[in-house]
């Protein structure tokens, strides 16, 4: 009777109690958390945007900093979601034994992993929305279409939270996450059109880049911030949603294998 770890998730509404637990902890530490999630990307955006912007007069018909704004929004959302499920998630799962305590209540592991997914997406969406506000205040976007970027960054948060949860399920210790950042997150950031247009990439790299979820997020969010309707928005959203579902399914199976023995 080996349990099938790949069985579909069995969820209950109790997962919102777990979400709320994470929210209540976050609320206690909200100020440093927001400053951390906001200040770093904004400083990069302004520094690179104005610094490099002097050398690069226009990219795809807009100022470099306006080009950079959409990319910054996506990659900082990705980072916020990734850090949450990797470091904070691993603390809750492995170090503080929070998940073990919760599983003694009428809440299943499936609920906990789903709650972590939604929580990380919520937190990253909040961070992204704050960055979007800064972008608007600085005048790098003036279009009401920019508001449509908020649900997209929530989906982006879900997608990277799901991918990160795979790593959390496999991690023996915090050090393990360095591989994920160095071998996946950083190259992806450089290939996904965050800092420069993807048509600068060699064709072979471009093929890989088109498969990366961050590329798809940038492809929707950047035009929205520039007041344009994104092309093939349905395809990009479908890729993000599909990666979310498949990654969550795998992450859940790996977490069940790790904890339900």
């Amino acid at each position: 009777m080996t349990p099938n770890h790949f069985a579909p998730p069995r969820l209950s509404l109790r997962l919102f109690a777990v979400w709320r637990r994470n929210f209540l902890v976050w609320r206690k530490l909200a100020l440093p958390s927001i400053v951390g999630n906001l200040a770093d990307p904004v400083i990069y955006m302004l520094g690179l945007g104005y610094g490099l912007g002097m050398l690069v007069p226009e990219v795809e018909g807009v100022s470099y900093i306006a080009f950079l704004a959409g990319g910054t929004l996506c990659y900082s959302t990705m980072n916020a979601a990734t850090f949450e499920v990797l470091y904070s998630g691993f603390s809750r799962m492995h170090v503080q034994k929070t998940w073990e305590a919760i599983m003694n209540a009428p809440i299943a592991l499936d609920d906990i992993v789903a709650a972590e997914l939604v929580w990380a997406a919520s937190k990253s969406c909040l961070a992204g929305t704050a960055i979007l506000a800064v972008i608007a205040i600085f005048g790098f976007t003036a279009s009401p279409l920019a508001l449509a970027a908020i649900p997209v960054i929530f989906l982006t948060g879900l997608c990277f939270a799901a991918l990160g949860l795979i790593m959390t399920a496999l991690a023996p210790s915090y050090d393990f996450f360095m591989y994920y950042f160095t071998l996946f997150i950083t190259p992806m950031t450089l290939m996904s059109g965050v800092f420069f247009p993807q048509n600068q990439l060699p064709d072979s790299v471009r093929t890989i880049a088109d498969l990366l979820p961050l590329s798809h997020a940038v492809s929707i969010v950047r035009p929205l911030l520039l007041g344009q309707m994104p092309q093939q928005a349905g395809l990009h959203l479908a890729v993000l949603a599909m990666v979310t579902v498949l990654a969550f399914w795998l992450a859940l199976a790996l977490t069940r294998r790790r904890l339900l023995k």
Partner: protein
Amino acid sequence: MPLEINGLVKRFGSGADAREVVRGIDLKLRPGECFALLGPNGAGKTTTLRCALGLTGASSGSITLCGLPVPEQAREARARVGVVPQLDSLDPDFTCAENLIVFAGYFGIRESEIRPRIPELLAFAGLEGKDKARIQSLSGGMKRRLTLARALVNKPELLILDEPTTGLDPQARHLIWERLRRLTAEGTTILLTTHFMDEAERLANRLAILDAGRILVQGTPREVIAAHIEPQVVEVFGEWDSAGAGAAAWAEAHAATLSKRCEISGETAFCYTDDATALLAHLARQPGLRTLHRPANLEDVFLKLTGRELRD
């Protein structure tokens, strides 16, 4: 019936690497009793508890928790059970009161429902006025008591405690024992695991000794002691003669004739007997040897059944 386990088997791994950690356990808890599971490390105590809670699937056997089949309805069953886990898992970012409120939320209990009960729960744990205290400021004993209070937020029918007093000082242990007695007096059924025989002897109405995944004996503490060990023990240690021979050498020479059974552990001989008069008279004539005469206890049974070798 708070918990019924029949023919529980739990294997880890598969094929040639398979390890059978639980090998056919039957347990039936009666409402309102305190039942202790004793066993050396690796005996299968914690695995049995995890199976009972539906946190891991059994390889075979059936489990009924609070009248519900596990794992099929484990979630519903756990709503009526409280658990004090072996390792502390309190939320370090919350205060004592917040820990209780958030944990109650996992049972679907609203904050407005649990908040009025917090003074009572903290008082039960001997933590009056600590509602705003941070977890880091609590001692190990206070944390364990708060974990006990946390396990009671849902007013459980069955309370499961995995080594509740390991690592605690005597004051904290006595307080926990007193509280557990109070709970059983109020009708809560308790299932606990422990390494401490005195804990089991004091608290448990019935107990089972486990080793290598099987129950070796089961019964009330008195029954188990009466059935498995001679009533009196004389421990002998010290120097036997001027040549430096010790209690072990003495036991080789005399224990067989003076006691029913003798175990040697290092330089101490444990002589088990129905009547110690002759043995004590003999020992009184051996000035170098020191003795301790006492009634047999659960620890003697435990060591007889599970052996004296270390289990790691």
